[in-house]
């Protein structure tokens, strides 16, 4: 029993092969990037995307797959997915990075193709043998029947030997390791059915089960192939986080810059971080002023001022000016590394979910084999005829065949993931739907999940056009998110930026220059003489006039309000836990109608909160995107991240939303609940077939015709029931 329960991730109880078809991940070759393109739909899009990608320097080859809505790009090492996404964005195509390892297997890889080929052989042989069997069923006798049986044997034996290999191989590995897995009984059933039929044929017997042996192989292979397609290679989010660490730092030795590996730095060293660079270490700013983006670590939506004495953490991004940082911690001692440890802990503590299929297998497998054994023993005692007893036992094994059970889950998951894929949702785990269906609490992150993590200017129309023009002129000199938001707003209003002379960015404060005769400044309140109030604002001062205030908010992600409303309507408790400041979190919560909101949560607080909810017996769905959410994503019962999320967050989550919209979220939940209902129906259906067929087999009345009918009918019923999901 315990051995059966330990077999990993079996969507088909009879096919708990575990490692047999583990993802090979051969698509992850170096320099190969994958993009998901949720918006493409026609020949024009294919041409546009491929031409646009090839125009990017360094790209050697770009190929769009319209069926999967993906593009595979082969490029030089230094080309990043972000460059390609930006290039496509300029052309008007929405694109997101997909790492090849997280994508579930497709037809293009060899393991899947091999399974498909075995399936084709089994299907071909099954149909031919079935046709030959029709002659036997309709009453062929003597030499004709023997001829049909011999031809069937000639087709069936090589076909079984070829197609059954995945089962045989797994059974053999299990047996040599002195374990028992579900492939052992399957192999026994197939081999015994074929062997017994060959013996019967040689003895000119009446019943040969060649068609049943093949049908068993075919249906089980079908289930396994579907199962394989929904399975992705397992990877560790903690390892992805470690990859965020910058391997080298620019160290300052007597005023000279020396590029040094992180391992050779020690506390007290001085390192220089250029604008746009990621902090390699934890430290204190010694000289320089800038702004740093710590959204990934803390969830704060806006850049933070960094000047002399500010503390910075590894992983944060330096935005505007160069900073010289005195190292306080490096490598394993940094905050970033501590978060990675937290994630690793959450991953290992994640309660192993026993799938519905595994639970069914545990109840089903021993029962069937006990039944066959009892049938054999009883007939042996009653009739004393070995041949008859073995025949009855084999008929029992075949009739209770787990094919319908083997198809019950993979067929539903395939139909559901197809439907969700069309809505822009990528399922990464086969059991994600089952787990999602159990959810009663939804925890959202704010920055980057409910909001776009990108500020947007408010009330652009209320400002004087000259103010806007001057501000836009100044803003064009800066890469600061607020400056860029203002420029976009001005553009949307149709205001051309004014010509500003002597533009100069003052890191950490803003931009200044001359507009005609007036000195002009655009930036922080303190620097421009503006009054700092609640909310996010930048100020413009022209000459000696009073500063003009520009307000910004973090734009909500499209569909966020609908998603929250639909989740609440579906009976879920919705919570917002963010690392951002209280006013920003409350504003978002109010806008979306979320009653429970917590702000200022550190990554470990998020994990603790999610774990506490789980401990109370709630099933938590975590929706998040950042480094600070990764631990919580790993700790939750099931997790979803948007395509714009950090690699590690996408790795930690079970489901990835491919589009910008969040409204697919509610559809996910409904589909998951429907899928679970279908899976349970399928189990009931196949159990029902067994209830009818088993007494017939035990009574010794089963003929190959009845076996074939029961097997095909139950498998087809189960598959059709699954297809109702589409």
């Amino acid at each position: 029993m315990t051995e059966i329960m330990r077999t990993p991730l079996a969507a088909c109880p009879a096919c708990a092969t575990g490692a047999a078809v583990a993802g090979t991940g051969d698509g992850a070759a170096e320099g190969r990037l994958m993009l998901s393109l949720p918006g493409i739909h026609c020949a024009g899009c294919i041409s546009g995307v491929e031409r646009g990608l090839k125009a990017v320097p360094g790209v050697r080859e770009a190929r769009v797959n319209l069926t999967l809505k993906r593009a595979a790009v082969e490029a030089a090492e230094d080309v990043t997915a972000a460059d390609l996404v930006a290039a496509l964005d300029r052309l008007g195509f929405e694109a997101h990075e997909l790492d090849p390892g997280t994508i579930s297997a497709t037809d293009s890889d060899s393991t899947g193709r091999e399974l498909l080929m075995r399936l084709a052989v089994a299907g071909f042989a099954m149909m031919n043998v079935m046709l030959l069997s029709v002659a036997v069923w309709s009453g062929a006798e003597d030499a004709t029947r023997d001829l049909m049986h011999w031809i069937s044997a000639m087709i069936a034996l090589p076909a079984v030997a070829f197609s059954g290999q995945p089962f045989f191989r797994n059974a053999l590995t299990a047996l040599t390791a002195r374990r028992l897995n579900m492939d052992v009984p399957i192999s026994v059933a197939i081999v015994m059915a074929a062997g017994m039929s060959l013996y019967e044929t040689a003895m000119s017997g009446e019943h040969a089960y060649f068609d049943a042996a093949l049908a068993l192989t075919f249906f089980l292979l079908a289930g396994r192939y579907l199962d394989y397609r929904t399975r992705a290679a397992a990877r560790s989010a903690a390892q992805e986080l470690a990859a965020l660490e910058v391997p080298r730092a620019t160290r300052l030795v007597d005023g000279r810059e020396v590029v040094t590996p992180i391992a050779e730095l020690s506390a007290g060293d001085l390192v220089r971080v250029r604008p746009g660079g990621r902090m390699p270490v934890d430290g204190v700013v010694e000289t320089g002023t800038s702004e740093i983006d710590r959204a990934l670590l803390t969830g704060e939506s806006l850049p933070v001022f960094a000047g002399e004495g500010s503390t910075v953490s590894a992983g944060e991004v330096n935005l505007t000016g160069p900073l010289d940082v005195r190292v306080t911690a490096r490598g394993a001692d940094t905050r970033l590394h501590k978060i990675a440890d937290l994630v690793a802990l959450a991953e290992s503590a994640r309660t192993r979910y026993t799938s519905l299929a595994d639970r069914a297998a545990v109840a089903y497998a021993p029962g069937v084999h006990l039944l066959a054994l009892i049938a054999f023993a009883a007939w042996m005692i009653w009739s004393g005829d070995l041949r008859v007893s073995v025949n009855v036992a084999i008929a029992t094994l075949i009739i209770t065949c787990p094919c319908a059970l083997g198809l019950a889950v993979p067929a539903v998951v395939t139909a559901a993931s197809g439907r969700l894929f069309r809505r822009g949702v990528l399922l990464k785990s086969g059991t994600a739907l089952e787990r999602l269906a159990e959810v009663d609490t939804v925890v959202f992150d704010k920055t980057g999940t409910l909001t776009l993590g990108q500020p947007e200017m408010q009330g652009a129309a209320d400002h004087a056009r000259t103010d806007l023009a001057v501000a836009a002129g100044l803003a064009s000199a800066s890469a600061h998110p607020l400056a860029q938001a203002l420029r976009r707003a001005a553009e949307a209003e149709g205001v051309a930026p004014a010509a500003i002379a002597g533009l100069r960015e003052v890191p950490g404060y803003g931009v200044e220059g001359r507009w005609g005769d007036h000195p002009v400044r655009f930036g922080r309140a303190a620097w421009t003489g503006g009054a700092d109030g609640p909310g996010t604002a930048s100020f413009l001062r022209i000459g000696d006039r009073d500063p003009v205030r520009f307000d910004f908010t973090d734009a909500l992600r499209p569909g966020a309000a609908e998603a929250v409303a639909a989740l609440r309507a579906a009976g879920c408790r919705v919570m917002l836990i963010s690392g951002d400041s209280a006013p920003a979190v409350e504003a978002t919560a109010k806008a979306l109608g979320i009653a429970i909101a917590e702000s200022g949560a550190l990554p470990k607080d998020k994990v603790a909160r999610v774990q506490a909810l789980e401990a109370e017996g709630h099933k938590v769905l975590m929706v998040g995107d950042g480094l600070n959410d990764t631990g919580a994503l790993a700790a939750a019962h099931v997790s979803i991240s948007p395509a714009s999320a950090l690699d590690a967050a996408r790795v930690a989550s079970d489901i990835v939303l491919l589009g910008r919209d969040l409204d697919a979220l509610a559809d996910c939940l409904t589909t998951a609940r429907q899928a679970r209902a279908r899976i349970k129906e399928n189990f009931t259906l196949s159990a029902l077939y067994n209830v009818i067929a088993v007494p017939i087999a035990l009574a010794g009345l089963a003929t190959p015709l009845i076996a074939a009918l029961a097997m095909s009918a139950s498998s087809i019923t189960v598959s059709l029931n699954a297809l109702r999901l589409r």
Partner: protein
Amino acid sequence: MDILSYLIPISLLLGGAGLAAFFWALRTRQFDDPDGDAQRILRTDYDDAPKQD
């Protein structure tokens, strides 16, 4: 029943030919992107970099 000795081999041969054709299609990756292939033929620009195996 002599006809069987012709018909059965013929039916097996025909079925086998179908199976071989399926194998060939699978090996030459014709099932990788059915929608894309259907659309690509409608493009006006010449595909000078057709997908290689």
